């Protein structure tokens, strides 16, 4: 019997390994392959067919070494970090609340998922319509007599701090985090609530000692996804940020589409820098998480 078991186990192991092949090959060929191809173009490799022949190999990257770009980099990374942390926190709180309350208000769950299906470009568009000084919120404020002219309404799009950009992102990403973690929360609560109450703990203790540690990988992972997406997407900052905001995806998009062939390498180089940053941030997160497990908070 034991031998049988082992054989089946071995078989499982190898057959199982085969299961991963199609997905892996697919990613290697398309995603990694595509990225290498882009890298090649940005290095000024043989594929660049521009009229201008650049002698140096790294010219596109060298062009990025200037204060404007570094300032933009700071703005872009900072904004992505703010969006990720804010939507992560609010998303977690909302998911906990929804899980606890969902029996009473099922429709709340549906409302919270509405924005997930809207493309980012359209969400930027929606926020333009409500937040601008002549937008719908300003009209509501006027209707209730809180303001007497449209100029009195606070500047929320095209503003100094990118408020509109952050709000539009939150509108998309909070529901995403909720969607990502709520099924697990619901299950964990149903599994653990009685046990912990039997042991004398309150709900908040259950959350702190049981649910959050188990959820941590997917929660942090979710925030990283948000960060990586925000850092590379151009639709929302293009529509809602002030002209000199300097979001890199927007600049890269302009370089790619407006300034001719030989500037495309620069656009790709900019995106490469962002990809590297996102990768480094992710590696740090993974490292921290491993440390955390090693210090004894390992849950499974």
């Amino acid at each position, binding site marked *: 019997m034991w031998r049988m*078991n082992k054989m*089946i*186990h071995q078989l499982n192991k190898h057959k*199982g*390994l085969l299961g*991963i092949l*199609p*997905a*892996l090959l*697919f*990613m290697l*060929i*398309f*995603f990694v*392959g*595509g990225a290498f*191809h882009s*890298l090649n*173009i940005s290095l000024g490799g043989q594929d660049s067919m521009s009229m201008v022949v650049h002698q140096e190999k790294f010219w596109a990257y060298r062009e990025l070494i200037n204060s404007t770009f570094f300032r933009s980099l700071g703005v872009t990374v900072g904004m992505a970090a703010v969006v990720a942390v804010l939507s992560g926190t609010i998303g977690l709180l909302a998911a906990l609340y929804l899980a606890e309350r969902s029996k009473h208000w099922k429709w709340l*769950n*549906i*409302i919270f*998922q*509405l*924005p*997930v*299906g*809207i493309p980012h*470009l*359209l969400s930027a*568009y*929606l926020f333009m*319509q409500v937040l601008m000084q*002549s*937008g*719908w919120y300003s*009209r*509501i404020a*006027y209707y209730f007599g809180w303001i007497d002219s449209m100029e009195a309404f606070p500047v929320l799009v095209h503003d100094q701090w990118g408020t509109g950009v952050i709000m539009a992102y939150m*509108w998309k990403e*909070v529901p995403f985090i909720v*969607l*990502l973690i709520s*099924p*697990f929360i619901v299950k964990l609560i149903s599994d653990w609530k009685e046990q912990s109450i039997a042991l004398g703990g309150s709900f908040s203790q259950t959350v702190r000692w049981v649910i959050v540690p188990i959820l941590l*990988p*997917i929660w942090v*992972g979710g925030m990283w*996804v948000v960060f*990586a997406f925000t*850092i*590379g*997407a151009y639709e929302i900052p293009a529509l809602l940020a002030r002209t000199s905001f300097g979001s890199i*995806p927007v600049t*890269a998009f302009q370089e790619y589409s407006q300034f001719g062939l030989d500037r495309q390498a620069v656009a790709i180089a900019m*995106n*490469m820098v962002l*990809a590297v940053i*996102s990768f480094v941030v992710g590696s740090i997160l993974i490292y921290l998480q491993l440390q955390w497990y090693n210090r004894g908070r390992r849950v*499974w």
Partner: protein
Amino acid sequence: MVKRLYVRRSVNVIFITLLTLFLIFPFIPLIIWSFTKHWPWPLLLPEEWNISSWKYLLSVSGRALEGLSNSLIVASLTLLGNLLLGIPAAKVLAQIEFIGKKAVFSTLLAPLFIPYTVSIIGMHDFAIRFTLLNEYVSVAFAHLIVTLPYFIATIWFQFRLIGNKLQEAAVSLGANRWKVFLWIEAPLLLPSVLLGSFLVVVISLSQYLPTWIMSGGTLLTMPLIIFPFANSGDSSIVAAYSLLFFVPVLLLLMVYFLLVRINAKNNLQIGGEKDAIRANKHSN
């Protein structure tokens, strides 16, 4: 003590109310805009209403139905690809240890963490070599890249939550691999498969760049029809298209919650079986 609880509860209610309003409010002007062309400040509601935008949408030029059906075909193909590639991969990653696992895992999830603009620009060249493939299939390929990581991550996490114990128990009772998957894992996986599928379909519906790169702009899905308008400033038409875009998403959402609920009911029974298996194992 009671008072503190009360305060906390009202803080919670305020928080969730504000958040709900924040999420719903932007939709209201969208609905209004789709029925008017002229709506200046400070009118809370427009004075003139008309349905010309909706008429345009459904006209020959509007192509709303063509876009909708193309979008749905691509999304279904993408979902199929995810189910076929994603579930086995997630199972291996969750249950089997092997050399280089971390590298494999990070490759599979890479599109989540690395802005995919980079590889999409490079993919442009690959896309051209795939002219022999059917348009729908090649676009679904591109959507698969974007969605597969979400799907694998969701399923993987659920596999980890299930653990290995039940399967081992079943194997010790003489079940083979397929039986284990079908009778033990599949039911427990269902909630995350539903979540993953929902994510996949919704993400696939909203893709612009991968769609036009893979089809060369010839497969007109909803985003390909809407995006030129989003830059043109005709608020009314953009609003009407957005709402139309929203219909399948809303339907999917309902179906998703319905399935989750049905599954939760069934789960009560499965939970009973689970205990039975546990008991069985102990008695062994």
